[in-house]
């Protein structure tokens, strides 16, 4: 009789322990997903802040590259005012493209290329571009881990009971997914 009780007790304790750890694991994974999402925003904002500085610096040396400069500014404004995720993704891709052509244009201005604050800005912006890509990668990795946790066998019970919904991946929209076009 005592043995049966003991075994039952062990099973109950084990079950409770399992529910706790599984639940906590899911919460942790979900928080990581949210953190990763916030990180993407942080990097995008940093890029918005850097662009006016860059444009000012370039203007001083290459004022007649108006079109390229304006393309960068309008892409930035479109990104800041975007209301839907799809719109935003589109604008971000435009910014990346506009910055690329801006940096390509600056190659023709040796004075500008020798300016230390320009070089620093260029380095920072390249860094931010990297970080945007990396934060998306990290977000997708986190989503992958979280989604897997909600799908595999023991976790799926807890996830169902406590409403841990699956998250969506961040996917490159439109241009970013298509073939790269080289313009001459």
């Amino acid at each position, binding site marked *: 009789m005592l043995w049966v009780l003991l075994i039952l007790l062990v099973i109950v304790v084990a079950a409770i322990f399992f529910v706790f750890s599984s639940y906590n694991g899911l919460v942790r994974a979900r928080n*990581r997903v949210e953190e*990763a999402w916030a*990180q993407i925003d942080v*990097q995008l904002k940093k890029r918005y802040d850097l662009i006016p500085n860059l444009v000012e610096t370039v203007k001083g040396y290459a004022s007649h590259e108006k079109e390229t400069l304006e393309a960068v500014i309008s892409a930035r404004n479109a990104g800041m005012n975007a209301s839907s995720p799809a719109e935003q993704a589109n604008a971000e891709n435009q910014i990346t493209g506009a910055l690329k052509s801006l940096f390509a244009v600056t190659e023709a201005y040796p004075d500008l290329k020798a300016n230390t604050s320009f070089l*620093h800005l260029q*380095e*920072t912006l*390249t*860094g*931010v571009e*990297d*970080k945007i890509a*990396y*934060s998306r*990668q*990290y977000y997708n990795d*986190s989503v992958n881990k979280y989604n897997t946790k909600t799908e595999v066998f023991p976790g799926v019970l807890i996830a169902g009971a406590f409403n841990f919904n699956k998250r969506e991946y961040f996917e490159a929209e439109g241009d970013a997914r298509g073939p790269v076009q080289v313009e001459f």
Partner: protein
Amino acid sequence: MIMIIGFFLFTFLVLAIVGYAVTGGLSSVAIAVLITLATTWGAYWKSDVIALRMSRAVEADETEYARYHNLVEGLCIASGLPKPRLYVIEDDSPNAFATGRNPKNSAIAVTTGLFKKMNRLELEGVLAHELSHIKNYDILVNTMAVTMVGLLALVADFTFRFMWLSGHRRRGHHDGPDPTAIIAIVGIILLVLAPIIAKVMQYAIGRQREALADLSAVEITRYPPGLISALEKLKADDTIVRSGSRATAHMWIEEPMAQVEADGNLSRINRLFATHPPLDERIAALREL
């Protein structure tokens, strides 16, 4: 973690047996415990400071080394790690290492030669490799290993001198087989072997972890060509890190004492004592991805 506990126990065991064999008293076992604990504690808290100072590393300025900071920040975002402290070593040979005890208390040091010789993508590969050492806790295992190996060597040396001076002290206690005598013999054998065993262990760990760090690095950057071409540049380069010593050899991305493999292939003995797999093997492994 298992590695560290293993190293700890191994060191402790050797110290305890040797202590017992030499002095014949249990008090020496207690002393062994204390010494092992003290060194482990010291290694845990101070090893990064010591390693950085030994290689004359200075903190990397945020504006002067903007690229360095940017790349590491990006990689940290990709891997979800906090940003380590960044150091620079004035040295023409391209190399880098990571140290610390956990991701929150870690540091990466890079030689100025690496900045000169690597482009952005290669630099990123190397930094991702170092960051992987931090992520996989290799930095802790490494520093612990060094301390234990050093301690064992020190104790071995000290005990031999001690036995030389007082060798005849415990003769003629009993007749017949003496248990302390057996322990003493075991102790002496251990004493001779311990530093060697510890070294081989250290090297084995090092090689395995280098290969793992290469793979984890590529997992972070998702761009194997960066690290491959960085390793190729390291292979082509024959300058040697001046500030590297044998004690810190296993920490660098490439073995700083690379002159041993100047004639192409390492001999079998050399391979046993190499802290890194040959660069060719590492490049080939990355190519297969």
